[in-house]
C-alpha cells in the first residue's frame, strides 16, 4: 500500500511539474523491432542509462534473501541462486541526461517471456514463480496473457553460440589473417591439403569450362562427379573437415583463391566446424556483393537468435554509465540471462561483467552517503523519503510518446530511479549536467564518489577482503564473521532474550558481552565481542567433556557451527527452507575428503567440523 501511495504522490508531482503528459513505451514482441531504432538514438543521445528489473519472484524464505550478516561472497551466492531460479518479467530501461537540473528521460518497458522460438529448449527450460509476487504484479494491472502470447524472447551470448552450432548455421570467416598454422604440418595435413586443393581446382576449372560450353547435360554430369552445388545463383563446393586443425588448413589454402572464392564456415551440431563451403563469384564486385549479402544474412539471423538481447548489446556497445538501484541483484540476473551462466565466484563474475558493462553506478550505495538512509528500502520509498526530508528540485522532461500506447502504470521503476539518482546526486553535489561538456573529468570524480560500488564489483582495486559483516539491518556496528556462531536446535517458540538468558552462565565464554539475533524461527546467531571466544565455544560444545546446563542443552539437541559452514553451504547451493536444515546438511556432507579441500583456504573452522 505504501509504495502505491507514494507512486500516486510521485505521479501527481510529475504531472504538476511538467505540462507534458508522459508515458512509458510498452514494448512487446509485436512492436519490438520497430522501436529499436528510436531506442538506439535515445541511448546515444543520453548520458546515463537507468535500468530496473521486475522478476517472477524473490526467495520465499527469509534467510535466502540477502541478510546484513552476509559477506560479499555469500551475498553473491544468494543472488546467483535467485537469478538462476527466477525469470525477468519486465525490463524497464530509461536512457536519460540531466541538463540544468532538468531530467530528460526516455522510458521504455520491455515485457520478456523466455519463449522457445527456435524449438531448441532455450533460453529457459523452466522457471519459478512466487505466488505473492505474481499477485502483487497483478494488482498493478499486469497482463499475463500478453506476457505469454507476446513477450519478447531472447538468447544469452553463450546460448546463441550453442544454438548456432545446433542449427548448423554458417558464418563468414571472421579474420583470415588470424588463421596461422601453428605447428609443423604432418603427413596427414599435407595429404589433406593436397586433396582439397586439387578438388577445389578441378571444381573451379570445371565450372569455368562448363560455363563456356553451356551444355546442360554435361554440366549436370560434372556437378555429380565433382560435387558442385549451387549457393543461390553462384556455384559452390562443400569441403568436409574433421577437426579444427583441418578447418584452419582448408581456410588457409582457400586464401589462394581469394580473388573470387568466398569461404563460409558451417558449424556442427556438437559444436566446432562441420564443413567449409567455398562459393565462387564471377568478379571482384560480385565478391563484395556476396560478402555483403552474407553479412546481412548473418545480421538477420542474429536478430532472430538474440531477440531482446539486442537491447543489452546496444547498452553494452554504447559504453554509457548504467544506473542501477541494487547492482548485484540486477546484474546477476542480466549476466545469467543475457551473457552466460554465472561463474562460481564473485571475482570471476565481476571481471566477466566488467568486460561488458564497464561503468555501473549503484544508487543504493550513493544513498548510503546520505544520513538516515542506511536501512534497505524500495526505490519508491527512498524517493518519498528524500522528498520528505530534503529539498532537491529536479524536473522531469519526458517527451510525449506516439499515441496509442497504453498508459497502464507499468515499468515505472526505471524512471523513478532516474529521478532518485538525480536527487541523490544533487544532494551530494555531484554535477550531472556537466557530464556532457567535460566528460571524463566529471565522471571520474563521480565514480570516485561511488568508489565502493566499483570496488565491490571490479577485480582491479581489490582491497584485502574485509570479512566484517553487519548483524542488524539498522545498526551500523560491524562484527568480524569469525566472531559469529550459528546456533540451532532449541525448543520451538524460543526468543532472543530467552535464549540469551539460558546461555548466560552455561559456559565461561558467556561471561563476556555477547549478542543474540534470530535469523529465522529455528536458527540464531551469537555475536561474541572478544576474539577467540567463538572458537572456544565451538570447541567446548563439540567436546566430550561439556558440563552443566550447556550439556543439558546439547542433549536436548542444541547445535552450533562457525561462519565457514555458512559460507560453504552457500557455495554448495544447499538451500533448504530452514537455515538450520541447510547448516546440518553442510556439516553432514563435510566428510574428511571435502574437509581436506577446505583446508587450503581456511584453517579456522574445519578442525572443529572434523570433530563432529
Amino acid at each position: 500500500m505504501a509504495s502505491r501511495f507514494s507512486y500516486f504522490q510521485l505521479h501527481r508531482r510529475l504531472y504538476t511539474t511538467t505540462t507534458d503528459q508522459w508515458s512509458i513505451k510498452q514494448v512487446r514482441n509485436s512492436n519490438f523491432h520497430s522501436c529499436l531504432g528510436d531506442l538506439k538514438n535515445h541511448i546515444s543521445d543520453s548520458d546515463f542509462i537507468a535500468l530496473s528489473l521486475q522478476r517472477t519472484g524473490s526467495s520465499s524464505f527469509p534467510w535466502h534473501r540477502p541478510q546484513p550478516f552476509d559477506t560479499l561472497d555469500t551475498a553473491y551466492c544468494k543472488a546467483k541462486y535467485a537469478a538462476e531460479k527466477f525469470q525477468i518479467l519486465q525490463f524497464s530501461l530509461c536512457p536519460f541526461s540531466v541538463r540544468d537540473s532538468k531530467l530528460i528521460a526516455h522510458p521504455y518497458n520491455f515485457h520478456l517471456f523466455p519463449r522457445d522460438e527456435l524449438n531448441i529448449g532455450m533460453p529457459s527450460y523452466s522457471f519459478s514463480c512466487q505466488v505473492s509476487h505474481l499477485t502483487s504484479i497483478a494488482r498493478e494491472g499486469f497482463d499475463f496473457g500478453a506476457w505469454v502470447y507476446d513477450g519478447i524472447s531472447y538468447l544469452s551470448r553463450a546460448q546463441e553460440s550453442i544454438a548456432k552450432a545446433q542449427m548448423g548455421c554458417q558464418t563468414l570467416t571472421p579474420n583470415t589473417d588470424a588463421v596461422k598454422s601453428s605447428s609443423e604440418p604432418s603427413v596427414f595435413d599435407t595429404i589433406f591439403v593436397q586433396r582439397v586443393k586439387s578438388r577445389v581446382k578441378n571444381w573451379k576449372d570445371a565450372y569455368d569450362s562448363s560455363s563456356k560450353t553451356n551444355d546442360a547435360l554435361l554440366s549436370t554430369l560434372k556437378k555429380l562427379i565433382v560435387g558442385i552445388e549451387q549457393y543461390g545463383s553462384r556455384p559452390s563446393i562443400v569441403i568436409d573437415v574433421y577437426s579444427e586443425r583441418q578447418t584452419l588448413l582448408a581456410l588457409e589454402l582457400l586464401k589462394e583463391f581469394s580473388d573470387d572464392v568466398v569461404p563460409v564456415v558451417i558449424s556442427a551440431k556438437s559444436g566446432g566446424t562441420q564443413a567449409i563451403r567455398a562459393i565462387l563469384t564471377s568478379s571482384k564486385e560480385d565478391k563484395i556483393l556476396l560478402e555483403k549479402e552474407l553479412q546481412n544474412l548473418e545480421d538477420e539471423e542474429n536478430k532472430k537468435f538474440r531477440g531482446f538481447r539486442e537491447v543489452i548489446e546496444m547498452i553494452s556497445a554504447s559504453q554509457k554509465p548504467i544506473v542501477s538501484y541494487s547492482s548485484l541483484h540486477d546484474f546477476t540476473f542480466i549476466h545469467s540471462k543475457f551473457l552466460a551462466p554465472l561463474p562460481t565466484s564473485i571475482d570471476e563474475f565481476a571481471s566477466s561483467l566488467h568486460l561488458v558493462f564497464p561503468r555501473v553506478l549503484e544508487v543504493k550505495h550513493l544513498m548510503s552517503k546520505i544520513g538516515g538512509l542506511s536501512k534497505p528500502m524500495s526505490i519508491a520509498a527512498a524517493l518519498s523519503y528524500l522528498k520528505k526530508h530534503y529539498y532537491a528540485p529536479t524536473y522531469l522532461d519526458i517527451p510525449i510518446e506516439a499515441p496509442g500506447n497504453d498508459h497502464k502504470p507499468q515499468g515505472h521503476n526505471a524512471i523513478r530511479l532516474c529521478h532518485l539518482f538525480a536527487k541523490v546526486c544533487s544532494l551530494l553535489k555531484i554535477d550531472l549536467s556537466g557530464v556532457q561538456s567535460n566528460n571524463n573529468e566529471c565522471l571520474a570524480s563521480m565514480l570516485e564518489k561511488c568508489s565502493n560500488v566499483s570496488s565491490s564489483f571490479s577485480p582491479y582495486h581489490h582491497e584485502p577482503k574485509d570479512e566484517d559483516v553487519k548483524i542488524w539491518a539498522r545498526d551500523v556496528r560491524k562484527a568480524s564473521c569469525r566472531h559469529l556462531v550459528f546456533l540451532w536446535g532449541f525448543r520451538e517458540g524460543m526468543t532472543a532474550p530467552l535464549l540469551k538468558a539460558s546461555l548466560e552462565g552455561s559456559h565461561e565464554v558467556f561471561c563476556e558481552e555477547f549478542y543474540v539475533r534470530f535469523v529465522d524461527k529455528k536458527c540464531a546467531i551469537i555475536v561474541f565481542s572478544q576474539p577467540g571466544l567463538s572458537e572456544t565455544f565451538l570447541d567446548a560444545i563439540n567436546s566430550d567433556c561439556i558440563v552443566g546446563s550447556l550439556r543439558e542443552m546439547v542433549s536436548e539437541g542444541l547445535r552450533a557451527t562457525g561462519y565457514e559452514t555458512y559460507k560453504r553451504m552457500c557455495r554448495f547451493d544447499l538451500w533448504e527452507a530452514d537455515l538450520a536444515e541447510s547448516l546440518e546438511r553442510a556439516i553432514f556432507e563435510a566428510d574428511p575428503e571435502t574437509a581436506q579441500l577446505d583446508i587450503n583456504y581456511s584453517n579456522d573452522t574445519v578442525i572443529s567440523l572434523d570433530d563432529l
Partner: protein
Amino acid sequence: MHPSHPLWARRLFCFIRTTNYSSAAVTAPATASNSSFPLKNVTKSNFEAALSELRSHVRAADFVAVDLEMTGITSAPWRDLLEFDRFDVRYLNVKDSAEKFAVVQFGVCPFRWDSAKKSFVAHPHNFFIFPRHEIEVDGPSSEFLCRTTSLEFLAKYQFDFNACIYEGISYLSRAHEDAARKRLNFAYGDEMLDASSNVTNVRDKKRVGIADVLFRERMKNRLHEWRDRLLSERNMEFQGQEGSNDHKRQFQTIFFKTRPALTLSDFTSHQIKLIQLVIKKHFEDLCFVVVNDGNADLQQFVVYVDSRDDKELLMQEVNRDQNKAAETKIQSAIGFRHVIDLLSSEKKLIVGHNCFLDMLHIHRKFIGSLPSTAEEFVSSFGKHFPYVMDTKILLNDNYILRRRMNKSNTSLSSAFGSLCPHIAFSSLRVNALNDCVQVEVQVDDLRSSKWNSGDKHEAGYDAFMTGCVFAQACNLMGIDFIDCSTSKNLVDNEILQKHINRLYLNWASGDIIDLSTGNQVTESFKTRKHRVRVSFENIVLIWGFSTNLTARKIKACISKVFGQANVSSVNHLDESAVFVQFTKPEMVSEFLNLKEKLEKRDDPISVLHPLTELFDARATHAAGYEAYKKICSSPMSKLLFSDQAEAVGINRKTMLIKSEAKRSKIDQAVDMLDETTEIQGTEGEANDLSSTNYQSLRSSSM
C-alpha cells in the same frame, strides 16, 4: 507439445490475443463466450454459487470425471526417462512433478444417467485455480515452477492466464488448514504472551526516557478522568461526551460488548505498550483488548469492567469472537478444496485419463505432502478416494475395447474421436448408432444436446471427453445403464471390478499400480511390442565424462574389457550421463571396483587400460542404480544430470583427489600413445561419424 504454427501465424495470433486481453484483464468472463461448447467457467467471483450447485450435481451423479491442467510436467529432461525408471523411481519423479508445478485449471464433470431420456447428463465445470494465499502460509507452497513450453502449450490452446492469476480460486490443503488453525490459536496465545512480556520488557529497561515518563503520566491522568466521569455519570444518562477536543481524536468512547470503552487510535505501537503498562499498573477495573476485525488492521480498546469476574467474562467473549473470525477466515481460505472434499465425502467413482499424476497433484495440493514411497501414497490416498478409474488402462486392458480402438492411439482426444464420434462430431449425431451412449450437457439450467467441439486441453472439456469415453466404454463392455440398479452401483459392477483403481504408474513401460492394494504389476507383454526388458540390478550409471564421448564410443570402450556380448546396451540419460546395462549383475560391482582401482593406481599399465579414456576426465563418476534413485529423490532439479548428481552430493562423496603428479604421468603416457595410435584413431573417428554427418556427406556429393 511443440507449436507447429509457422512463425507469422503465431505472431498474428499473438497480436489478436493482445488486443483482446489488454482491456479484459480485470474481470474474467463467467462463461466462455468464444467457445461454442457449453461449459461452466468458475472463478473467485462465482465460486460460492457454483459450489452449492455442484454439490447437488455430484450427489446425484453416477460418476465424476476430472482433468487437471498444470504449469509443467517434468522439471528436468532426465526426469522423463520412462524406460529406465523402476516403479519406485518413477514414483519419485512423478512426485517431484506434483510438488513443483502448480495446477491452474481443474475440470470437474459429474455424469448422471437420466432414465427417462435414456441418456447421460453431464455438467462440465472448468475451475480456474491459483495458489494465492488468503491466509498466511509458509513453506514451499508459496512458489511454483513453470515449464516454458507448457505455458506456451497452454497459450496455444487459448488458456486465459489473466483469469487464472486475477480471478483464480485459492485453496488450502488439509495439512495447511491444520497448520493455519494451530497458528491462529498460537498467534492469539502468543499475543497475550507477547503483551505480558512486553510489559516486563518496558519495566526492565533501566533507562526510561523522560518522554516516556511524561507520556505515561499523561495517559494515567486521562484514563483516570475518563473512568471517574464514567462512574459519576453512571447514574445519569451516559452521554459519551469528552472534555477537550485535542484528545477526542485519539480517545473515543464507544460501547464494547455492552461495556463502555475507549477506542485507541493514532497511537504508535510503543505508545500502545506504554498505555498497556499504565492500565496494568494502576487500573484494576480497566482492561486492554485487541480485536482483529478480519482486515489487516488491529483495533485496540480500553474497556471498563465492573469486577474481576466481569473481566474474565469479557476476555472469554473476546476469545470466542476471535476464534469465530478465524474460523470463517479459514473456511473461506479452503476455497477450491471444498470441491475436493465434496468428491471425497460422496465417495463417487472418479474417472480420469492416464491420471496418476493428477491424483498425486490432488494429494499434494489438497490433502497434504506426498509420502516418500508409492505404497504409503496409495494407503493415504485411498482413505479419501476409494474408487478411481483410469480410462487409459480401460482401453488397453479390455479386449473388446482394444479391438474397437483398432490399435489407434489411446490419447484422450483420439479415444474420444474413435469411441464417441457421435458426440465429437455433431454432424454424425443424427445417424447415431444403436450401441452409442447418448450424452447431453447441462450448464446452469440450460440443457443442450448439440454443440460444436470445445477447446482441447481445457480442463473442463477434457473432463467431459474422459467421462464420455468412460460411458461409451462401459456400454461396449456390456454394462446396461437402462437397468437403473447398474448405474447406481457402478463401483460394485462385476465387469468394472477388474479395472477399477488400476492406474498407469509408467505408461511407457506398462507399469501399473493398484490403488486398492498398493501392488505394482507390469502389463502383460502380449499387448505391446518392441519392449526392451530392463534389469535394473545390471545397470551402471556413468556421468561427468568428457562431452565428445558418445554412447557408441562408451560401449566400444567397455566392450573391450567386458566383452561385446556382456554389454547389452548403453543409453544416454542426457548429454552428460549414460546407463550401461550389463548382462550379469555381478559385472556392476566388477566395473565399479575396476574404476576405483584404475583411479588409485598410476602406473603406465593402468594408463593403457581401455577404460582410462572413459575415466580420464576428473569429473567422471560411476554408480549403481540405487544412486540413481537417490539422485531422483532429491528435491532439486538441475538441468544436466551431472550437475544434479553433484548438487545431491554423490560426487563429493565418491570423489578421489588425484595428485598432480599422477595427472602429469597420465598426460605423458597419453602423448606417447597418441603417436602410436594416431592412424588408428583417425580411422576410428571416420567410422564413428554420426548419421547426420553421413547424411550431409551424401547430399553434398549428389
